């Protein structure tokens, strides 16, 4: 199930909130926890229940390994370190099989001229996220920072529906105390209002802004070979904003609906495109992933205590892994590599102690991020390079003949938004992104005046009205 769907907004979330607080009101605390766990599994399996067994097995195995670190079972004959290793390998192997096996096989086919049949695997929803969440749990448990003796609690920690599909990536220690705190078990109207506000903003970002930009981006990516210089630049900016509004909108919805249940999820985005350097960017973009990579990859590799050269290597390795985690393809690897190199260059730059004017620093950071997203979005390296190439081609006035043909047989012009209209809309989205308060700041700014309430209602209404879109069919050839 997705947050931006009728069934979630009109049915699932109201029912979950009512039943959860009703059970708690009766002081059936265990039942309420069990209910949340059960309903999260329902949320997960709503479209395709086929991967429910997978996530349940993964939870079970991680729970037993984690619990055995806390001497729930007397497994003294097993080395703790060995057990940790087994646990991590299990999680990584599961992810590797479901997400990366076809990538590895097609590369083997390419380099060794083999012809392995690719597997027909549907990627289990959220596997990247629950794998990282559980690896963090195992390491925390191994180091004695976490103790969890209850299987249902652990299951809820992993599957709690707001964060299950796309994060934020959470820690056991920041979640489970909230679930056991009795103060959180009674309905809290302040949290309901603020949660609803954050959810509405997220829904608006996702279904009104990101999905509008997506239509334009997808269209231009389909005809990427024919882009003019201006179009190529414009496309890259559109995608940069699409991704931000999409992902941060999704996170807002997650934080919002979790808050309505009195559970505070960690923040994940803090106006990343206003960052003045690349390190700053990663402290504002997908913050919980950055935190995870730092704590469970970069620091174990040696962190800042390693030698200078080793630090640079570690930074790049960390970002390579981060890149590859986003998707099984060379484009993601390159994207990670670019960011790793940028972070490493930034580290060297800091040593020189030269202050750039703010606007220049911002521009360098933003343009770099913007270029890197081209690799992130492109379906292949050659597509990414073609688009980059288009951005730096000499400006031509005349359209290539193929585009002429495309424009008069394939597209009914009335249906497409014109460039002018779209550019206005795009400028408006950019204005929102750079000048308005982000949803973290808005949370504490709410005062309850009529203007605020109308603002929340209107964003929510616009979000709901945009759930079903009028689709423009680009492939109008016949």
């Amino acid at each position, binding site marked *: 199930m997705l947050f931006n769907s*009728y069934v979630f907004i009109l049915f699932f979330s109201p029912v979950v909130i009512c039943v959860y607080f009703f059970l708690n009101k009766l002081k059936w605390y265990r039942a309420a926890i069990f209910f949340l766990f059960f309903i999260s599994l329902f949320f997960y399996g709503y479209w395709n229940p086929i991967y429910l067994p997978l996530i349940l097995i993964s939870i079970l195995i991680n729970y037993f390994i984690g619990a055995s670190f806390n001497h729930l079972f007397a497994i003294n004959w097993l080395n703790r370190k060995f057990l940790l290793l087994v646990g991590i390998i299990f999680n990584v192997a599961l992810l590797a099989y479901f997400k990366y096996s076809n990538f590895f096989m097609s590369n083997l086919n390419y380099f060794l001229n083999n012809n392995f049949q690719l597997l027909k695997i549907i990627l289990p929803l959220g596997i990247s996220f629950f794998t990282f969440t559980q690896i963090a749990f195992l390491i925390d448990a191994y180091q004695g920072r976490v103790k969890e003796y209850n299987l249902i609690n652990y299951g809820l920690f992993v599957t709690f529906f707001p964060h299950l599909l796309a994060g934020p990536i959470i820690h056991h220690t920041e979640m489970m105390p909230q679930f056991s705190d009795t103060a959180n078990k009674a309905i*809290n*109207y*302040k949290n*309901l*209002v603020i949660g*609803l506000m954050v959810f509405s903003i997220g829904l608006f970002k996702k279904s009104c802004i990101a999905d509008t930009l997506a239509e334009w981006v997808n269209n231009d990516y389909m005809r990427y070979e024919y882009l003019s210089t201006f179009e190529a630049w414009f496309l890259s900016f559109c995608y940069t904003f699409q991704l931000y509004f999409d992902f941060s909108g999704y996170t807002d919805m997650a934080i919002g609906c979790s808050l309505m249940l009195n559970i505070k999820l960690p923040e994940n985005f803090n106006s990343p495109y206003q960052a003045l350097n690349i390190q700053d960017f990663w402290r504002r973009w997908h913050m919980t992933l950055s935190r995870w990579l730092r704590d469970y990859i970069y620091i174990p590799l040696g962190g800042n205590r390693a030698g200078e050269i080793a630090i640079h290597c570690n930074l790049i390795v960390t970002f390579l892994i981060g890149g590859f985690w986003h998707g099984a393809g060379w484009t993601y690897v390159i994207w990670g590599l670019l960011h790793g190199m940028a972070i490493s260059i930034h580290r060297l730059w800091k040593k020189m102690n030269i202050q750039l004017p703010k606007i220049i620093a911002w521009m360098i950071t933003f343009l770099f991020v913007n270029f890197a997203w081209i690799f992130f979005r492109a379906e292949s390296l050659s597509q990414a390079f073609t688009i980059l190439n288009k951005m730096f081609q000499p400006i031509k006035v005349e359209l290539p*003949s*193929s585009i002429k*043909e495309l424009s*008069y*047989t394939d597209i*009914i012009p*009335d*249906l497409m938004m014109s460039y002018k209209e779209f550019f206005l809309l795009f400028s408006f989205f950019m204005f929102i992104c750079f000048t308005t308060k982000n949803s973290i700041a808005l949370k504490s700014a709410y005062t*309850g005046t*009529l203007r605020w*309430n*109308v603002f*929340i*209602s*209107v964003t*929510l*209404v*616009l979000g*709901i*009205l*945009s*759930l*079903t*879109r*009028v*689709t423009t*069919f680009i*492939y*109008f*050839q*016949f």
Partner: protein
Amino acid sequence: MEQLFYKKKLMHILFITIGLLLLYANIIYFVDPLQQYRLATFFKAVYINEIYQNPGLAKHYNYNAVIIGSSMTENFRPSYIRKKLGWQALKLSISGSNSFEEKIMLETAIKTGRVKNVIYGLDFFRLAEKNAREGFPDYLYLHQSIMDKLKYLFNIGNIDFILKTMIGNLGLAYKDNMDLDSVYTFNDKLAYSAENVILSFNNKLKQGEKLHFSLAEMKLNFNANILSVFKNNPNITFYLFFPPYSVYMYKLYEHEGKLFNFLEMKKYVCAVTKNLSNVKLYDFQSDSMIIENLNNYKDIYHYSEEINNYIIDNFNKKKYVVTADNQTG
């Protein structure tokens, strides 16, 4: 105290939200820009989008014949059909349609009980596709559930239709989009010439035509989406025809190795429809007088209105009828 304050605010927000949603839905129901509930009453409809506006027409317009197919059928004019065949025809063509989309379009019309004759242009370009294109608004078509109705009433895209309808009714634009006889024709707008056909051929040669002609899938979809409708409606006469693409299309398909499956599929269609008394099959594809005169075309596929009229002229003649004897494939 604080709880009470926020409880009140929550009630305000919910009240405003529900109020706005109901207001919006009522406006949409009243204006009904896609004619889902009734034909346009206090304004003239502006037709800009077949996929969204055809189903409303199919449900409420007065007709006894429909035109089904892709852009190969968009140049038919109901007035010409009325003159030649005496039918009150409604054009339900969908640009770029596949057989599944054609099926739900046709069944939406048939469900009204008004359809006596169907003019059906049969293409194979998308026949291998099983489902409607992504984003296809099937909620406007057949068997609408309550959820489907809500998707129309609570859809912000309606604003665009309302705005364009207003612009058209004020006489500011969309003059050509308000007459059902000429709407969606691409006749005067575009150039028909041998030069354009060759240009389009060369472009396609370079890019490759990204279409699939898997025989098994085409047969499967033909049976499921087209043949089944023929068989389920014995009282409706179907004028099924193979549209005359330019000779350059065959050149391209031969070059790309698609021609064999294309011709095999034609044979298959002939074979499975020959015993159906309510299906009349016409083949305009082997007439070299049409397909070799490149000035009839604007690209390798699309022919001009004269050809559409010619097709109508020949529905009551024997010349292009496919029978058990003249099948050559």
